[in-house]
């Protein structure tokens, strides 16, 4: 197990190094951030002073050397735009993204599992066919356009929910959260729903397939034969047994949700790390982009590792060693 973790971390370090180097030099060739940052009416001396302050006057190799040296001191550079350490900046935005992803997952399960079970119990009913058609649509619909349409309906035509932003927040243990205020909840709902619809379609399919299979098992027949009420059979015996695949797949999907949060956060102006990434790419804020990349690679490796461990705990037939090629 330890050897497995070490090999995984080694791989992650390699991926981080390769991607960070590509993006570091790539952003350098795309453009000079100083052109976007300073007042165009400033004279040449002011421009040069600004470049010196950000270290951009030095050759790219020297800049890269500073960057690599900084990593070993836990310093991923300072944002050109915000003038704060890049890592600190990203970590300050991370709670907003995690809150969004968490509520999206919650919505996906709370709505997706019951709908999938309905479709699985009565596969030929019109309501089940409608649910499955909706889930196919949920897979195909472009996420960002779906967000625009949600804004159009809820914010522009009905005017019942705000179009973007995060609303009022409350500090819990020093971290601002939205879901504890009414205004924050109203701001959270649309972006969370937008992020949830794709996962919901996935959960519906998993829950339907699981229900159709479990409903035929002997223990379900036995539970019925004992005279238990249908709601108890479905709510306890069936539900428990379909949750394992749902939970594992959703665990794997957490990483994807963080990636797709980039799109949702941009549409709804939600101040998380995804929106920060897009703003930083547009402003050529290299330290933030590179720091985001390294942090995400790390998070992905950890998520995959936890899912692997979860697999082997839930299903003893899966041995970790067997997965290493």
């Amino acid at each position: 197990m330890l050897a497995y973790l070490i090999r995984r971390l080694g791989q992650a370090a390699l991926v981080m190094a390769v991607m960070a180097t590509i993006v570091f030099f790539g952003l350098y060739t795309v453009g000079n951030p100083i052109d976007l940052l300073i007042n165009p009416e400033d004279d040449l001396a002011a421009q040069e002073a600004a470049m010196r302050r950000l270290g951009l006057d030095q050759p790219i190799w020297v800049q890269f050397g500073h960057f690599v040296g900084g990593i070993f001191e836990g310093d991923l550079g300072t944002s050109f735009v915000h003038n704060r350490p890049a890592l600190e900046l990203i970590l300050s935005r991370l709670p907003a993204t995690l809150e969004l992803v968490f509520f999206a997952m919650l919505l996906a399960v709370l709505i997706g599992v019951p709908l999938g079970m309905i479709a699985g119990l009565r596969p030929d009913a019109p309501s089940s066919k409608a649910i499955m058609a909706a889930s196919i649509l949920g897979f195909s619909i472009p996420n960002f356009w779906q967000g625009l349409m949600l804004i159009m309906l809820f914010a522009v035509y009905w005017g019942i929910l705000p179009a973007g932003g995060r609303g009022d927040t409350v500090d819990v243990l020093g971290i601002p959260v939205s879901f504890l205020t009414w205004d924050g909840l109203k701001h959270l709902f649309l972006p969370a729903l937008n992020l949830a619809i794709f996962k919901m379609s996935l959960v519906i399919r998993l829950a339907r397939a699981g229900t159709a299979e479990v409903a035929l098992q002997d223990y379900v027949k036995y539970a019925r034969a004992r005279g238990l009420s249908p709601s108890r059979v479905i709510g306890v015996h069936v539900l428990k047994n379909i949750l394992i695949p749902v939970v594992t797949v959703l665990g794997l999907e957490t990483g994807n949700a963080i990636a797709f949060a980039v799109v949702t956060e941009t549409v709804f102006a939600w101040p998380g790390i995804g929106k920060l990434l897009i703003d930083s790419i547009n402003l050529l804020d290299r330290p933030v982009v590179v720091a985001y990349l390294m942090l995400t690679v790390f998070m992905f490796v950890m998520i995959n590792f936890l899912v692997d461990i979860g697999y082997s705990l839930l299903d003893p037939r899966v041995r970790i060693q067997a997965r290493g090629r």
Partner: protein
Amino acid sequence: MSAAADTPLRRLAGDFVKSPSAVVAAIGLVLIVLAAVFAGAVAPQNPYDLAQIDIFDGSLPPGSTGFDGFHYLLGTDEQGRDMLSAIIYGLRISLSVSFISVSVAVLIGLVMGMLAAWRGGWVDSLIMRIVDIQLSFPALLVALLLLAALGKGVDKVILALIIVLWAYFARTVRGAALVEIRKDYITAARSQALPGWRILFGHLLPNVMPPVIVIATVQIANAISIEAALSFLGVGVPITEPSLGLLIANGFDYLLSGRYWISFYPGIALLLTLVCINVVGDQIRDILNPRMQR
């Protein structure tokens, strides 16, 4: 199975028409592709010819008639561009970007996947390790970071999509090739002392194609939606060559003032295209899937 079904292609067609929804989707897809290919002839106006657009016709709702009697079926954007024409031209860019990138990714995936299965050993481990690592990250995120480093441009979007997509094909091809390599016809080809490349491309290649075709249809839809998302985020195609994603992004600013049609209709076009491809792809998968064959 009818008696006329003698060639694989005819058998495929025969199975395909058994699903009415797949036939409707296939017809829709053909129409969409034809409209995109012959955009110049199909579109009511050339939206990028400044002589044809009239700024005074800007932001007209769908169904309006312009000053010179031109009928704007889907309305106009703020510069007086006919949205229907802009969508058809945008469709052309979306489709060609995804088609080119998937084609190249298929080629790379075929070569890499067959090489991994054929050579085995360290070649196999190296290629599959790269594939595994790449597939553990979401395609959209990898493409986004690559484009941050490459800058905007149609060619750069294609390059990023190729880098993201080849791994799916390499994995599928390797899996199929490992099964095929154990079969007698490969042993027969080997015992004839044919050169390796002739066995790979002459004998193995045709037999690993069915799963590749299935993955390719799915990945074209995937490529279209990744490209649209990248362009929406502002790192994809440049403003001079707007794809559907960029058209939707341009309409975003006008949505809040109620001018919904500028991003609504390009999105409908995108959605229809994706649904048609997915339905056709599902049907092809069901036909080619050996477990479903009678």
